[in-house]
């Protein structure tokens, strides 16, 4: 599929050979996680862009041209921003509560379907559905915290990990039972901007803008409000926070709610540019872990730095390596950072 359009395939041999050999290459295609293919190829507008590449390949034009490089660059930044948004809620819950929330991806999936249901039911633009998804997920997050996390907040870390995984199983099964596991989409074609030959898909552009607004909003909330200060205090020192009169369990509930709401926001924007299935949550979840560790568990700017790194690896990796080989590079980078600098590239807690 994608690989037939790719520069290195065309440079290696005569372009015709590259194209002819293409059917062999996607031996890996059927089961490959669709995230890259979806995030890049799911856009109608991109078909045009890749078509242009394909034509160039047939003509034997040497690649990559600056335009194509710029195109990949744009994709990488957009994807990186989305990964940053996905990681935001995860890193917040970790930073404050020291809990790894395996249900994060499942919460995103709930939000995706909430957007679908809301916009189907009301006939309004999906953009109105996103705030609804955020609110819904905040409530879901608080309920999950109260029922499953709060009783074992002081237990060994593994217990919380197992419980959030249990929540993941329940949420995903529930979504599967109601909506089935076929891909769903909003049928929204936002089109794309073209800037001197470089396509900027609008759905992802909006997602990136929303991600940046969410980052700024959460940042301001944490820095400028009393509640935010209480959350930062709890992240710094839970016992100390308790001693100065902060209601730590309430802060935990709030943090988990906000983390889930951020998952809701991330899940809410994904239908703008991508079709989705209940399994999509797992793919985002795994890479979100990588993003969070790369950036530093609990660090907000780190989430976006990590997101960009993964975005670049994924886009350029799927362009030049083929299949989902980029995912191997991502995990190698992840393991390397875990070993050499486990506190992450911008390590620290949520308040730094």
């Amino acid at each position, binding site marked *: 599929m994608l690989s037939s359009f790719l520069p290195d395939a065309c440079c290696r041999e005569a372009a015709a050979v590259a194209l002819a050999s293409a059917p062999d290459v996607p031996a890996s295609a059927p089961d490959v996680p669709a995230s890259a293919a979806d995030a890049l190829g799911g856009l109608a507008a991109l078909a045009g862009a890749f078509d242009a590449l394909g034509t160039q390949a047939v003509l034997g034009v040497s690649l990559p041209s600056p335009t194509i490089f710029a195109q990949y660059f744009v994709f990488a930044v957009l994807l990186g921003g989305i990964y940053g948004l996905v990681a935001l809620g995860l890193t917040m819950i970790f930073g404050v509560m020291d809990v790894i929330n395996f249900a994060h991806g499942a919460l995103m999936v709930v939000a995706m379907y909430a957007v679908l249901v809301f916009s189907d039911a009301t006939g309004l633009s999906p953009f109105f559905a996103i705030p609804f998804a955020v609110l819904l997920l905040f409530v879901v997050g608080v309920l999950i915290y109260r029922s499953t996390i709060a009783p074992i907040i002081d237990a060994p870390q593994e217990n919380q990990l197992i419980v959030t995984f249990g929540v993941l*199983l329940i949420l995903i099964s529930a979504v*599967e039972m109601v909506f*089935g596991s076929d891909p769903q989409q909003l049928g929204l074609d936002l089109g794309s901007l073209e800037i001197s030959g470089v396509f900027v898909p609008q759905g992802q552009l909006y997602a990136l803008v929303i991600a940046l607004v969410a980052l700024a909003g959460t940042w301001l909330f944490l820095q400028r409000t009393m509640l935010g200060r209480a959350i930062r205090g709890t992240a710094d020192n839970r016992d100390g926070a308790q001693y100065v009169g902060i209601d730590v369990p309430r802060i935990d509930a709030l943090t988990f709610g906000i983390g889930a709401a951020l998952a809701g926001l991330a899940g809410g924007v994904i239908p703008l540019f991508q079709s989705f299935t209940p399994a999509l949550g797992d793919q985002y979840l795994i890479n979100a872990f990588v993003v969070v560790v790369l950036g530093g568990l609990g660090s907000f700017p780190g989430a976006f730095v990590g997101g960009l790194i993964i975005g670049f690896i994924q886009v350029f990796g799927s362009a030049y390596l083929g299949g989902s080989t980029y*995912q191997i590079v991502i*995990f190698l980078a992840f393991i390397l950072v875990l070993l050499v600098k486990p506190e992450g590239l911008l390590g620290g807690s949520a308040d730094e």
Partner: protein
Amino acid sequence: MSNALSRAVERYGAFRDERYALPVLVAVSLVVLAAIPFLRQLALFGYAPLGWLSLNMLIVTLIWATTAQAWNIMSGYTGQFSFGHAAFFGLGAYTTIILTGTLGVSPWIGMLLGSVLSGIYGLLIGALTFRYDLEGHYFALATLAFAELLRYVFTNVPQLGGASGFFRPLAREYADGPGLAAFQFTGDLPYYYLILGFLTIVTVVSLAINRSQLGYYLFAIREREQAAAAIGVPTYRYKLLAVAVSAFFTAWPGAFWAMYFNTIRPTTVFELLVNVEILLPAIVGGIGTVLGPIVGSFVVIPVGEFVRQSFSVPGLNNAVYGVILIAIVLYSPKGVVSWPSRFVELLRSRTDLLDDDGA
């Protein structure tokens, strides 16, 4: 009546405190497991109480009991919580099927090489993570990353099967036909006894470690690693040993999986959910106990399979797993195997009260 009950409780309490109690319980459990295929045909007044247990379901239950037993040696005994045992399971499955399918080697040799390879991969993971002192979340995420890494390697390298994986070769392609030597049988019953044999071996190893000095070292590492190191336990070396043993035996049920089911693919042996299915029985049954993984597997897997087979709702069995996981961690973190003891304690305290009243 109450007298008879309290006497029985007393007798169980006394038995439980004996040193031979655990080996006896393990032996009884294994004998019961050996008898189950016949028990399930037993009918009382035309009703077979175990009739709903299919052989296939029992085999799957024993596969996950064996993996959980192997996981338990590392994560239960030393407290190094692995979330990536699918790596070892998958390595066992893939090595077996690749060697048998392409080179015509006996699956038994494939299984042996697969488990050695798994052990080496486990040593690599352990050497890196323990050397850099990864703990808690970081350790769990690192092990997960090592498993996911393998998933994508096998997905993207065509020589390793790619995303579509491998078909199990026919027995006559590399042997005289189905039989023990070929690791393939025509019916399910021999498969059942084979996996029961694997489970028995891993359980005996686990029991032996539990009772040896090695076991005490591992428990010391789990309870307080720095204190263990301070009194001279070479913690790094023993953690590595635990990983290697655990990885070695996790590859066995992986190899069995490859020879029992028709195909293996990265999504069936390396997936995120496999990591959970491996540790699920141990957690439900009781982490760090010898009987826990077996008991837990028989609590979780038949229920999940029963739900999956009787209601045609995809995903319902996963929801059941989720509910069981949460319920166990919240309400009984020591697992199902702790229930008889808790029952005994409960009755003892009640009878004590009664005695006091009488006196």
